[in-house]
């Protein structure tokens, strides 16, 4: 009898401990609680709250070109940003120019110093704005797809909010204030065919 009570107590203890040690949860519930990176929110915050301070201090395109002609290595080191290693870097620039041509994919400007700039109005893709901002750190992300999604979402906002009002109003001869990101390759430096992904565009009356 005593043995029986002893075994019963042990069984109760084992069942109690076992019951509280093993949990079953639906996989869908678990997935819902895992943290996923919110790229659209990140991109919105980058563009609205963080980037203005960067574009405010950005070098003018004319000054950048002047410096690149004199001292390309130093200029790349001081002004260029990129998340990968290699010859390509991205630069945040600003300036003013006059529209000299408009086609399906670009609006071409001539700047105050008569440098040519193409504002991309169709093919707004790639990492230029993300990298040129200097605000995104590779080591903050273990997942490279999240990094790529930042660029994707930033470009989506530019294509939706910045390009359409500009494109519908722009005409030859208009003066434009711009900020944006350009890509340059230090090993194959081409200063006559620069295309910019715009961050802001303003037609000056």
């Amino acid at each position, binding site marked *: 009898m005593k043995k029986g009570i002893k075994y019963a107590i042990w069984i109760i203890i084992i069942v109690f401990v076992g019951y509280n040690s093993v949990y079953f949860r639906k996989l869908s519930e678990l997935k819902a609680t895992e943290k996923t990176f919110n790229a659209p929110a990140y991109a919105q915050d980058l563009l609205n709250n963080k980037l203005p301070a960067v574009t405010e201090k950005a070098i003018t395109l004319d000054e950048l070109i002047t410096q690149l002609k004199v001292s390309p290595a130093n200029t790349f080191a001081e002004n260029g940003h990129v998340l*990968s*290693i290699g010859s390509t870097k991205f630069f945040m620039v600003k300036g003013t120019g006059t529209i000299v041509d408009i086609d399906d994919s670009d609006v071409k400007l001539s700047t105050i110093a008569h440098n040519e700039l193409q504002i991309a109005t169709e093919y707004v893709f790639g990492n230029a704005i993300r990298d040129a901002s200097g605000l995104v750190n590779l080591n903050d992300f273990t997942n*490279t797809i999240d990094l790529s999604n930042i660029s994707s979402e930033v470009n989506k906002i530019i294509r939706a909010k910045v390009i359409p009002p500009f494109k519908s109003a722009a005409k030859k001869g208009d003066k434009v204030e711009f900020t944006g990101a350009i890509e340059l*390759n230090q*090993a*194959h430096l081409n200063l006559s065919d620069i295309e910019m992904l715009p961050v802001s565009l303003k037609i000056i009356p």
Partner: protein
Amino acid sequence: MSTLNNPWFVFLAQTASAQAKSLGYETKIFDSQNNTATETDNFENAIAAGYGAILFNPTDANGSVVNVNKAKAAGVAVFCMDREVNSTTGPTSQILSDSYSGCVNLGKYFVKQMHKKGKYVEILGIVADNNTWNRSKGFHSVVDYYPGLQMVAQQSADFDRNKGLEVMESILQAHPDIDGVFCGNDAMAMGAYQALAAAGKANKVKVMGFDGAEDAIQGIKDGKILGTAMQFPKVMAQTAANYADEYFKGKRDFPKKIQVGVEMVTGKNVSDYIAYGKKN
């Protein structure tokens, strides 16, 4: 190495080995023949032989993790080159190409050359390799915005030239009137081009690849291939060997991942490039 049946990987292996030797180390190249079980044997042999570091090009982003962890447990540092494993704790560092961004640029060029319309085919690489999906996603992140461009077929040819030829031949049976082909590497692109040439369609169909292999660079010069994305296996291999050297000298704070930029090569700038890198 995942395989030595592809000259690109032969170049990667030989460059890594040469850099390690120049730093004073003994090296050996193991061929995993695209087989994770063979890769496991290679790891066991390397660990048993007393190698202190493995410069690793995985066969499978998930399946290779167990091999990396075995090496780590045996005190052997692993530096991944070109292909990653899905582990943030196993490898000491992973040195990879930025395939996604490279294919965003490829996608942009493809859309422009196709004038935003037409039927195209995608030939994928090895499905267990993250590079396959990084390249595909980068490409589609641009191309899918253009409803005039229609993907009529998508199939894997395992990064292999002969399979690329067979897959292209087979797809042409069902879709004889395509306008473009995007291949996840140059070996498949050259195979696809061969199939198109045999079918008399090489002048009509635009073919794009990825890697910057010798025959693709020549193909661009000859007008056979529209473009490719140049990877820099020399940078990856030398970085991996240098990191191993630093590891042996006591360094431990390596970046978990490094991305090496990839550059577009087309008819316009092909004279600036040679196979696997830049001219100057």
